């Protein structure tokens, strides 16, 4: 038999000014099952909470209704108080008399009557509440970091330094990502490699980090704390354990004309190659698509010259399965390539470059060893034009967003050019200069005032070649929309940053959501920027949205912090307000008929198939089961279930029906 206690709060005068609290308490005392009903000035105060605790003990209450403010305000307070008195916290409910009644209605009979109705609703609900207990899930204290750019490196190091294991997967033969390609970084003009490579080495040498390069994540199953990841280690055709990294093979390889990805096609590499001198791991891989042996069956020069005999042509791809408790996605971005700007002639004119290509030209480790020279004839450009928003902020091109990093790197490029070619003239065509960030605006100012970069506010309509010069036709909107024509030797396009081509596929593998541009979606744009909607999977860096290095690093550290919080306990506790499929005695076992309509409805892949077997192991019935680690408690499956076999704890069919009946009861 239910023994319910009702506690009506005045909230000072916040409730009692419009609701007659004593009348509410009196009326509640008459509800069936209510054995204790009082009103008090401040229920959340210490004496107020004591009244609840004492009543639970003295009257042996089986349920508590606190009629006061919104449960979003004080539900934890009162549940805690109940728990202290030995009552299961989930047997406490709140009637919202303040936000939903006293504050929004005038004083009068109708308001008090509504308050009574609200209390009746919760009394009827709480009678049907069941004691619930937090769900405990074990946690595997290993994190998987997908992507070895600066975001992935930062996340991996932070997690590893927190004392947890990390497995890092990188698609390319070396970690480092786009940051390793950069010449210098804004706004300090630090050498990118100088600050990055020590971190890369740290990753390789860290005892807590296992590094898989030239590898891809191909599958992820499980749930927070208990994922199983499948990784394909592509065959490098080199035995890493034996290879000493002497790179003799790379000098002897006859295939010498393959465009280097690291140099954005401006340099050449061999078929067996190390992407760049500071690569981590600094061991070559064979590019099977270009290798003479793989193509024709003859050559094997690298095998002959290798002093360590480390070449393995028959090495197969290897599939590795690892157990991890959390995943950090840090797969980064890419930039728009050829064909996107026919009016700018990119791909047609060799001296029209992308921003990343210019980085390689300006980099001391680049194809020109840091001298800015035209790819076409190797001459030093006397006039150079930078065009911002090449693709970005252009709905006609399908990209409405701002790529965020270009304004700053264009200023940097122009500055680097002026530092290297003192007599040169540089122009920047821009829409707006977006230099929000510490020391960013000052940096752009410096480019304009100290380095005399000519900023022209306007768009470029066309670029064409005339007598070996690139004619840039644009407009200067600050000079009365005057047409501008510049004879340039080189043009650099700040092409839009876009999501990696494999992003959509990866999102589907990981079951995380992504936006229309294939950037991964965070769980909340303001308050949960590093989490995805899938518990246990976190985001770092430009795979979520374009961002610069400091922001990527900050987000990576944030994600690592979240992972370390998750790993700080060996068990995870979660609120038990989740869906459950009913179970009953044989021969029914469950009213679930196994239609699995619930499965596609679940946004969290929490519905599993469970086989009920007899003693001989024969399957009697296949029913749905809700994985308590994955279920977030939305209840979409509950409304879908045709046989009403799934119910959600805390909002059961019985509870909500009782509430509806109680609202509409008598007059």
């Amino acid at each position: 038999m239910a023994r319910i206690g009702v506690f009506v709060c005045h909230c000072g005068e916040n409730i009692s000014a419009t609701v007659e609290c004593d009348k509410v308490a009196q009326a509640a005392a008459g509800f069936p099952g209510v054995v204790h009903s009082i009103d008090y000035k401040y229920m959340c105060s210490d004496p107020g909470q004591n009244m609840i605790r004492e009543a639970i003990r003295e009257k042996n209450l089986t349920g508590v209704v606190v009629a006061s403010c919104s449960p979003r305000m004080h539900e934890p307070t009162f549940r805690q108080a109940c728990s202290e008195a030995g009552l299961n916290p989930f047997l406490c409910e709140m009637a919202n008399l303040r936000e939903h009644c006293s504050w929004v209605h005038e004083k009068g009979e109708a308001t008090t009557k509504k308050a009574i109705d609200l209390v009746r609703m919760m009394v009827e609900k709480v009678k049907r509440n069941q004691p619930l207990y937090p769900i405990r899930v074990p946690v595997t204290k290993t994190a998987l970091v997908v992507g070895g750019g600066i975001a992935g490196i930062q996340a991996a190091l932070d997690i590893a330094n927190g004392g947890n294991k990390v497995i890092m997967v990188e698609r390319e033969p070396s970690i480092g990502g786009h940051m390793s390609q950069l010449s210098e970084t804004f706004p300090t003009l630090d050498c990118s490699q100088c600050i990055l490579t020590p971190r890369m080495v740290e990753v390789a040498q860290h005892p807590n980090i296992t590094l898989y390069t030239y590898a891809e994540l191909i599958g992820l199953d499980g749930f927070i704390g208990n994922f199983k990841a499948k990784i394909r280690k592509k065959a490098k055709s080199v035995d890493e354990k034996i290879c000493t990294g002497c790179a003799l093979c790379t000098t002897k390889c006859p295939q010498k004309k393959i465009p280097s990805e690291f140099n954005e096609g401006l340099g050449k590499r061999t078929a067996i190659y190390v992407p760049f001198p500071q690569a981590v791991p600094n061991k070559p891989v064979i590019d099977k698509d270009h290798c003479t042996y793989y193509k024709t069956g003859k050559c094997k020069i690298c095998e002959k010259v290798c002093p360590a005999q480390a070449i393995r042509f028959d090495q197969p791809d290897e599939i590795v399965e690892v157990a991890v408790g959390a995943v950090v996605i840090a797969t980064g971005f890419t930039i728009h390539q050829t064909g996107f700007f026919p009016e700018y002639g990119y791909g047609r004119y060799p001296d029209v470059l992308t921003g990343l290509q210019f980085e390689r030209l300006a980099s001391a480790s680049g194809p020109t060893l840091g001298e800015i020279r035209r790819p076409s004839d190797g001459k030093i450009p006397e006039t150079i034009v930078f065009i911002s928003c090449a693709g970005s902020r252009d709905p006609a091109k399908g990209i409405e967003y701002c790529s965020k990093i270009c304004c700053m790197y264009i200023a940097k490029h122009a500055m680097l050019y002026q530092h290297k070619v003192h007599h040169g003239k540089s122009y920047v065509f821009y829409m707006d200069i977006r230099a929000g960030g510490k020391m960013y605006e000052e940096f752009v100012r410096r480019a304009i005032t100290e380095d005399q970069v000519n900023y022209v506010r306007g768009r470029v309509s066309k670029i064409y070649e005339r007598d070996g010069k690139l004619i840039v036709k644009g407009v200067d909107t600050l000079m009365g929309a005057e047409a501008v024509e510049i004879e340039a030797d080189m043009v650099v396009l700040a092409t839009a940053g876009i999501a990696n081509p494999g992003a959509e596929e990866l999102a589907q593998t990981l079951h995380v959501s992504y936006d229309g541009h294939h950037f991964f979606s965070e769980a909340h744009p303001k308050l949960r920027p590093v989490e995805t909607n899938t518990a246990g999977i976190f985001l770092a860096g430009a795979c979520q949205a374009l961002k610069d290095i400091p922001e990527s690093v900050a987000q990576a550290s944030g994600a690592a912090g979240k992972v370390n919080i998750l790993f700080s306990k060996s068990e995870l506790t979660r609120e038990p307000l989740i869906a459950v499929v009913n179970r009953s005695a044989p021969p029914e076992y469950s009213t679930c008929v196994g239609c699995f309509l619930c499965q596609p409805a679940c946004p969290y892949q929490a519905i599993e198939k469970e086989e009920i077997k007899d003693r001989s192991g024969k399957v009697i019935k296949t029913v749905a089961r809700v994985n308590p680690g994955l279920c977030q408690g939305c209840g979409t499956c509950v409304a879908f279930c045709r046989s009403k076999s799934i119910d959600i704890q805390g909002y059961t069919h019985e509870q909500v029906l009782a509430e509806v009946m109680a609202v509409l009861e008598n007059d």
Partner: protein
Amino acid sequence: MENKIFEPKIVAFVCNWCTYAGADLTGTSRIKYAPNVKIVRFPCTGRIDFMLLLKAFGEGADGIIVSGCHPNDCHYTSGNFHARRRWISFRSLLDFLGIDTGRITFSWVSAAEGAKWAALVNDTVSRIKELGPYTDYEKVARYYEEEVNHE
């Protein structure tokens, strides 16, 4: 009963994350609205079994409000889309059954839209007042009872 001013009974089925919080904001902003509506809290509009709406009419509700997060804002990513889809098919079922769909308000109220919640309630209340008490359901029930007795 005849002489009394008709005060409709309206049940609101709302999600915990957007509309319930939005209604809380109406309270904190002290925006006044009609006291005819009582809120039943759900984790998500996706949880709402629309048969409950019929049950509410059967128990004497004159009007119903269903409200949750705006599309794309669902706390659970897609529950409100399920609710919307369900509402679209349920609406034609109601039409077919002869239940006036004008008695149900389906809307989105975010946690920041306290004023919208008040306006939504007031609009619904005045609309239901115009429509008058809902008795069709009782009529159907009575008719059904007679049929049973007849047999």
